[in-house]
């Protein structure tokens, strides 16, 4: 358990935002542009082309980087923010109780357009490239005889809330009590850049054996997840490559890069020169270190090579990154990815069809 606590603190602190120091620089020829001061929570989000930026500084604000206009959206502090792919709607999640989260959808003018309450503690809020607002959360019910841990995916579509059960685990009483305060950090969820697929952990606590995690991968349009790996109980961080084909898993064992659709049967792939990775405050392209902003910094990649960076309680706009292929983010790419998950097309057929769409 001590090991668990230690690893939780060490590995996941790179996701927290307590900025100190000064940004050392940026991509050559693309200096960072200061936008606003932000609070210790370090929560920020911009729409894809970077024309609308939201951040928290004790309250929730909306900023137009070009004009410098700033508007207060809410006095309450959200726990997650996500912009719609068309850049016209902002989703903000607010913690209402232990296992209750309120979701509000704002227009770019700051009006509340939609609201919903989901009976879970939020793990991830995401807006898919197709326009689906997605939220994943968990709920733990502890009884004298054990605990029931469930992870649920919600799709918010105007007035409808579609619920999908991702995991359902029974925990023995000691483990249920031990993990209860750590679940936010123990159950990371990461959506593919397209938002159609996600990776998440399922906690198993089998009788007579040690508890363990199962890393699962699922296209949410289908019921059945696939197992990527099993691992001892530890804090982990998950994130996807822009292609939506590769997942980076950071754990005590180091960084593991998992190719979800290996063409030659290899699950672990070498780094490629075009892949950007942001790990522990460092931005890499392939193996080349582009910038080091410190462990507490955070980044959001935007369109046209731009990015948003938080360092030292300040928010910056940067540029100079290479853009990813557009085909995987359009409707055709979305459909082809679904076919691949359903095994209607092989990985090589998928790749060929994707290239034909690009031509």
């Amino acid at each position, binding site marked *: 358990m001590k090991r668990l606590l230690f690893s939780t603190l060490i590995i996941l602190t790179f996701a927290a935002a307590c900025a100190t120091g000064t940004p050392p620089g940026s991509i050559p020829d693309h200096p960072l542009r200061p936008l606003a001061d932000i609070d210790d929570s370090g929560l920020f989000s911009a729409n894809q082309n970077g024309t609308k930026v939201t951040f928290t500084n004790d309250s929730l604000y909306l900023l137009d980087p070009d004009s410098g206009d700033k508007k207060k959206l809410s006095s309450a502090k959200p726990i997650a923010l996500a912009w719609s792919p068309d850049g016209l709607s902002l989703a903000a999640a607010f913690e209402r109780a232990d296992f209750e989260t309120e979701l509000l959808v704002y227009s770019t003018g700051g009006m509340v357009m939609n609201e919903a309450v989901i009976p879970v503690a939020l793990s991830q809020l995401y807006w898919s490239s197709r326009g689906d607002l997605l939220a994943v959360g968990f709920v733990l019910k502890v009884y004298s005889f054990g605990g029931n841990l469930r992870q649920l995916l919600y799709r918010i579509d105007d007035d409808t809330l579609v619920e999908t059960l991702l995991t359902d685990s029974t925990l023995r009483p000691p483990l249920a009590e031990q993990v209860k305060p750590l679940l936010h950090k123990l159950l990371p969820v990461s959506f593919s850049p397209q938002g159609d697929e996600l990776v998440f952990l399922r906690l198993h606590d089998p009788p007579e054996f040690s508890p363990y995690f199962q890393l699962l991968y699922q296209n949410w349009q289908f019921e059945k997840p696939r197992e990527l790996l099993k691992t001892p109980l530890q804090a982990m961080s998950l994130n996807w490559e822009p292609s939506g084909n590769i997942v980076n898993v950071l754990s005590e064992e180091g960084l593991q890069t998992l190719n979800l659709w290996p063409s030659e049967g290899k699950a672990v792939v070498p780094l490629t020169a075009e892949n950007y990775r942001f790990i522990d405050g460092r931005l890499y392209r392939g193996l080349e270190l582009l910038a080091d902003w410190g462990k507490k910094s955070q980044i959001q990649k935007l369109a046209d090579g731009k990015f948003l960076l938080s360092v030292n309680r300040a928010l910056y706009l940067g540029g100079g990154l290479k853009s990813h292929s557009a085909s995987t983010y359009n*409707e*055709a790419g979305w*459909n082809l990815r679904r076919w691949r998950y*359903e095994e*209607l*097309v092989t990985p090589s057929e998928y790749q060929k*069809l994707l290239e034909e*769409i690009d*031509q």
Partner: protein
Amino acid sequence: MSRFFRLLCLIGLALSVTSMVIAEDCVECHKKETPAAVTQWQESAHAAKLDCTSCHGTDHEAIINGDAAVDAKVCGRCHEKAFHEHVASKHGMGLHAGWGCTRNLDTRDPRECAFCHEEGSTKPKTTVQCARFLTQTAEMRSLGCNRCHQVENSCASCHTNHITDLASVRAPESCATCHMGPDHPQWEMWQTSRHGVLAEALGEEAGPTCQRCHMPNGSHDISFGITMSPAMTQSSGKDFEVRRQEMIGICLECHSKSFSERELNSADAILAQSKELIMEAEAIVRDLADRDLLAPSVQERPEHPLRGRELVLDGQMLYEDISHIERLFFKMKKYDLAKTVKGAFHQNPAYTHWYGNAELKMTLVDIKAEAARLSHTLQRPHEQRGEGDVYHSQEEELQILKRKHDRGAISDEEYREGKQSLFETLPKD
């Protein structure tokens, strides 16, 4: 020595007196409780040699709890030849063909365990299970399934419990209890065949009974002369030849060899022709399943007790929680095929043609009509979901191709080519 011998005699006398007392106790009490059973035993051949405890044992509580059933092995202690013939025959596999473990069923009757397990053993006598049995209530399993399928373990299925007069089991009516009805009307088709009519009018010498052909000379090998499995699969090779010659040997008692061979060969041909119709119907149903046009679909219905979410059209097919077209197929395979083929082997033209062949072909007409209705009137699944774009339409075609490929209906090459032609229709922008 003489003292020791006297002691042994005294012990022997004491034991026999105890046993006699128990047996006398049975009769005294059961004359009031089950008088017919006592009378039947008293009038039977067993009464001269066996008392109640010889077969039932002395543990009255076990008898009451159903733990001391008089099964075939008890009878086999004396009737050794009959027992071994029975065990080797299709009757001896009654449970193998019809049972399944009820351990996890809500409706389980604990006494059912004894049918498949030796006392104190968790190892089942059989691993073959019956989906139709497992979907029944405990009452239906007892009265509707076991009453016939218990024949494997129970001589009483045919002989009854206490009567030993063989006249009752030599009467063809004895077989009718189980071998009748829509799934295998052997009794009805024999009764109305020339064989049955002659037997009824002029006696067994003129027309053969069930026992005369299938249990000649009192044999308990009821597989005698039969070349088909219960699922109507023809045996092959030497086994076929041996069984066929056995039956021809029976036919020769009244008919010429050429006539016998011709009749049985014709029945074989009718079996093969009828199975062609079944295969045609099955392909139609499977194609609909590939296209997700069955209602309820396999995903929407309760899981099959043995195969889960799988379309089951073989001997484990259910007749409940299925689509209408599957219900038609069930009738065709389970009823119509049996009437046609068994009618042919039992020399009953009306069963062979009108109850069997005509129904078989008319049900195939119904199946084709239902398939056409489903194909033309039902919206395709992606249309029902309001997903009318080319990707969802092609996705459905890909799913159909995949299902066909997964079940071996199309080759790897046909699958690749089918997919390629679909890819070519996709918009490239």
